[in-house]
């Protein structure tokens, strides 16, 4: 074996990455070659030198790193949610459902049936209910406006103007509001909630590419003046909350 043939083996042997056969050949070569023995010595010195720095221990900021990871994951997930087919209100709608459910639980704690109310508690309860209604109206109005103005493309790629998940979320919110506020709100808002429920059910049943059903829903939204009605309720409830 020539020196050139063993130069890699000399190094790999120190890492214990040489077959038994190659090791025998290497030993035999080293027995007769001073310059390759020198290479072995140099490699050993380098390894020894590199080992010296293994004494250090690191003190990383584990928690800070984790917090940043969580933030980055959240940001990247939000970005992947926003696809062009979904309008701006879709994320708000999903978030509102969560707030709505939390709101109900908080609201129940100050509901009239739980315990006798003082005047202040009644006021707090009313404000809380108005806030929940306001959040709902803020989400549903742009959705209805976008829907009324939606022009279906020649070939529907995304299955319709609104994602099914969003429709289901809004439908669930509407039903929750109807159930919870059935006898406690202005009757006209109950009527609006009924109309919203009907529209959302129809919308949920629209199949991709079914332009006729979609146009019929758009017709209902326009004739009933849904966006305008919502806007009026928004203004009204804003006045109440401000008072």
């Amino acid at each position, binding site marked *: 074996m020539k020196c050139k043939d063993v*130069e890699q083996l000399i190094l790999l042997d120190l890492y214990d*990455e040489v077959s038994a056969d190659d090791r025998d050949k290497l030993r035999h070569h080293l027995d007769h070659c001073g310059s390759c023995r020198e290479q072995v010595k140099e490699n050993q010195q380098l390894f020894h030198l590199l080992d010296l720095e293994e004494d250090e221990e690191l003190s990383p900021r584990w928690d800070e790193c984790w917090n940043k990871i969580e933030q980055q994951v959240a940001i990247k997930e939000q970005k992947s949610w926003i696809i062009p087919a979904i309008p701006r209100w879709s994320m708000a709608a999903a978030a509102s459902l969560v707030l709505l459910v939390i709101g109900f639980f908080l609201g129940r704690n100050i509901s009239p049936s739980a315990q006798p109310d003082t005047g202040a508690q009644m006021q707090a309860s009313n404000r809380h209910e108005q806030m929940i209604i306001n959040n709902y109206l803020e989400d549903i109005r742009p959705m209805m406006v976008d829907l009324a103005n939606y022009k279906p493309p020649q070939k529907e790629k995304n299955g319709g103007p609104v994602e099914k998940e969003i429709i289901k979320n809004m439908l669930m919110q509407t039903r929750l509001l109807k159930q919870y506020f059935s006898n406690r709100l202005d009757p006209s808002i109950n009527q609006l909630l009924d109309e919203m429920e009907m529209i959302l059910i129809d919308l949920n049943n629209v199949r991709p590419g079914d332009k006729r059903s979609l146009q019929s829903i758009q017709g209902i939204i326009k004739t009933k003046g849904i966006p305008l009605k919502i806007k009026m309720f928004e203004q009204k409830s804003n006045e109440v909350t401000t008072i």
Partner: protein
Amino acid sequence: MSYSMNAEMEQTVQLAKEGNRNAMKILYDSHRKQILHLAYKYVRNLEDAEEILQDTFTKALVALKKNKLKDNTRFSSWLYRIGINSSLDLLRKGKKQLTEHSDERLQQYPDENPHTPEQESLRREMGQKIDQAIQKLAPKQRMIFTLKHFQHLKIREIAGHLQCSEGNVKKQLFRAVNTLKKELKPGFMEKVNEV
């Protein structure tokens, strides 16, 4: 890792895929040291190593939720590969150059054989010289050397992680060691026995 631990880890990975925050944290806690150590040995300063750690876990957790990892049992090696790529990316960006070995958050193990002030000074000087020498290696060569020398991976494993042949790994490793010897030889290799 025992069978039950493997099964537990698989379940944790599955939960993380489903968005369970606690599961994600468990994966972070159980693998953070391994990734940080790899990154630190590669970039050789703690701040950049932390950046690689964050980048690795962010990429991995987002990919997990998108179900990019098909086989949950392969999580550790999959994560390790992401760590390798994140480390390579940092150097490829070209923005990072080695800082001197002066990180305040490095602690020294208590030494059983205390050194004289001269020996201490020589060790520090050697540490810096080693850092500088390793910095001179090309990114991939540096990664191969890091994985072999500091992470003690088998040539076969390195080839798998870097998706190249074993022959190529051996060749790059050989070149890396020769470069280091050349860089460290003048005046240093002989002093090894003094510290």
